């Protein structure tokens, strides 16, 4: 039998592999558990322990230790033993470890003959899988109690009444009653999902983390990242602890102030600028971690690189975090041209990788490692600023890993920065860009919009918690502004912008109830005359003045020439 591994169901002395196309096959297996104990025979008295073996492992700091790996007939024994003994290497999860040993990693094509599993295709090919996403909808938007549905099956859109819904898929994310209406090998309930990625993104996470997608459904980005790091540690026989004691170096307030800083953020020059190039470092933070070998176990382990912030780096052994990230960065680069949606899912893990270094519960992090990353990031951007200044370029904005420059020979500048810093850059020309201010007139670094070859790009302008009406207005405004080829033309759009605004001010009065909905933390609200109310209780009127003012306020920010 051949197919893609979609899921695994543990049994007694065996596991059932679920393959695409609803195929199932049972393979004999045991389930491993690593326990730190001086009396392994006592643990082995459990009736589900088949046998055990002693293995040499080491802690992150290099200390060696003997761990016992017990092989269990039934997974229920795992939970029983984990409550009574100190269990280590809980990540990768026991099912991931089982699949790994079987040679049946998630979303790889395998061939199974007489109980023997063999990977026949290691690359994930989504065209051979059926993937669905089904959302139930009410008048205000997605809702588990809605009676309408909107589905997407392998890119094909479907809508209709929930009673007419009939759908089969290998993996499906669903909501509310729709979950009972569809047939799928793995159903991922959207209400329980914590990952900020789509079903395709979750499948990619499952692929890169070698963990069943069902186990990632409730996982945060941190789990996907930590599992990747845990696989590196696992292969090196480095113990993955359940709890990491983290003691920060003693420092005085001055030292802390000098190093406890984020990336370099420049306050922008205000106004509209023609012919600007946005220059971005690709995956700067993960690249810094990889280049400088930053990981909990490499910081201050020796003094191969001495930094001015008091933390040193050791290059004797490649760190666990850099090794895990290297494969993810390469994977993201590869996916960019294959499937941008999956590339975005990997990008999320990379985005979290830096923050997780400083997170107190991170298994492979350390606050000093976190500080080193921001230190090198500031240094890198400062270097780029100096090169820009040497070349006579005007820098109008800069945020952490991105610069907006104006001037001649930007390509040469990009090449020089790449050579001198060792990091990859990408340049995106903008025919114009607008940098806006706060209400008090001071520059605001996190908001800008400008025209690129793909249309108008807006940052920090459209927020999730805006009324639908305002979001629609901004989308229309974006389309309108994309017709301007320079700042001068943008300013002449005043009459059109006014016309658009007037249309939306009329829509405030005559709009559909859905126009007034504001989503805050997953709850739909409408602003009524007595304040905000929960839209799930029905539409009970709207405060016209609130929506009018919201529109007027927004247009002043995005189009200051009115």
């Amino acid at each position, binding site marked *: 039998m051949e197919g893609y591994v979609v899921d695994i169901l543990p049994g007694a002395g065996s596991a059932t592999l679920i393959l695409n196309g609803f195929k199932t096959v049972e393979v004999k297996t045991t389930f491993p558990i690593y326990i730190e104990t001086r009396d392994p025979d006592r643990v082995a008295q459990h009736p589900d322990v088949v046998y055990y073996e002693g293995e040499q492992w080491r802690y992150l700091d290099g200390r060696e230790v003997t761990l016992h790996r017990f092989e269990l007939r039934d997974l229920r024994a795992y939970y029983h033993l984990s409550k009574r003994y100190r269990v280590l290497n809980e990540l990768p999860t026991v099912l991931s470890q089982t699949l790994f040993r079987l040679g049946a990693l998630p979303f790889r094509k395998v061939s199974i003959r007489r109980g023997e599993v063999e990977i026949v295709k290691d690359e994930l090919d989504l065209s051979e899988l059926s993937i669905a996403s089904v959302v139930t909808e009410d008048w205000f938007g997605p809702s588990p109690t809605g009676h309408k549905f909107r589905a997407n099956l392998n890119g094909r859109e479907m809508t209709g009444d929930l009673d007419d819904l009939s759908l089969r898929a290998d993996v499906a994310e669903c909501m509310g009653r729709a979950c009972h209406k569809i047939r799928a090998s793995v159903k991922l309930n959207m209400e329980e999902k914590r990952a900020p990625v789509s079903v395709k993104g979750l499948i990619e996470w499952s692929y890169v983390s070698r963990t069943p997608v069902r186990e990632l459904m409730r996982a945060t980005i941190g789990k996907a990242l930590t599992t990747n790091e845990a696989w590196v540690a696992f292969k090196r026989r480095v113990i993955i602890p359940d709890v990491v004691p983290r003691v920060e170096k003693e420092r005085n307030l*001055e030292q802390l*102030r*000098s190093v*406890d*800083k984020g990336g*370099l*953020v*420049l*306050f922008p020059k205000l106004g509209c600028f023609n012919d600007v190039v946005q220059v971005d470092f690709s995956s700067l933070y993960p690249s810094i971690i990889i280049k400088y070998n930053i990981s909990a176990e490499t910081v201050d382990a020796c003094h191969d690189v001495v930094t001015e912030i008091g933390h040193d780096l050791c290059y004797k052994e490649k760190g666990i975090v850099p090794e895990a990230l290297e494969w993810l960065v390469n994977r993201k680069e590869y996916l960019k041209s294959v499937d941008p949606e999956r590339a975005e899912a990997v990008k999320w893990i990379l985005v979290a990788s830096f923050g997780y270094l*400083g997170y*107190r519960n991170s298994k492979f992090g350390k*606050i000093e490692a*976190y500080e080193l990353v921001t230190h090198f990031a*500031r240094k890198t951007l*400062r270097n780029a600023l100096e090169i820009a200044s040497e070349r006579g370029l005007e820098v109008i904005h800069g945020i952490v890993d991105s610069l907006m420059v104006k001037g001649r020979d930007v390509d040469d500048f990009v090449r020089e920065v790449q050579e001198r810093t060792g990091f990859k850059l990408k340049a995106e020309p903008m025919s114009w860009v607008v940098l806006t201010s706060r209400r008090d007139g*001071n*520059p605001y670094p996190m908001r800008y919009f400008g025209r690129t070859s793909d249309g108008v790009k807006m940052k920090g302008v459209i927020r999730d918690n805006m009324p639908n009406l305002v979001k629609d207005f901004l989308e229309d405004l974006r389309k309108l502004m994309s017709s301007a080829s320079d700042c001068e033309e943008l300013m002449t759009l005043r009459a059109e912008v006014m016309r658009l605004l007037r249309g939306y001010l009329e829509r405030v009065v005559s709009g559909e109830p859905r126009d007034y909905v504001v989503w805050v933390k997953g709850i739909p609200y409408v602003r009524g005359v007595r304040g905000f109310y929960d839209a799930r209780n029905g539409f009970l009127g709207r405060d016209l003045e609130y929506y009018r003012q919201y529109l007027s306020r927004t247009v002043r920010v995005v189009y200051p020439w009115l």
Partner: protein
Amino acid sequence: MGRTQPSFTASVDSEMEKLSRIANRVGLPCLRQAVTEASKRVRYFQNASYDEMMSPQELVMLALISAVAEGFCSDGGVRS
């Protein structure tokens, strides 16, 4: 990171406001003008000093000195 530092920008703004209040009370129009000019350029001093150890007071003073050095408040004199 498990610890939170107060916003440096907010501290700079609060220092700037303090200076502006004092300039208003003293009643020196040219000083007021210099403070207003300093508040416009203080962000650019922030950009340049991000990697240095500098207090908000030092930063605000530097912005003020730069404004004065460029001729703001050159006539001097109490006008109240």
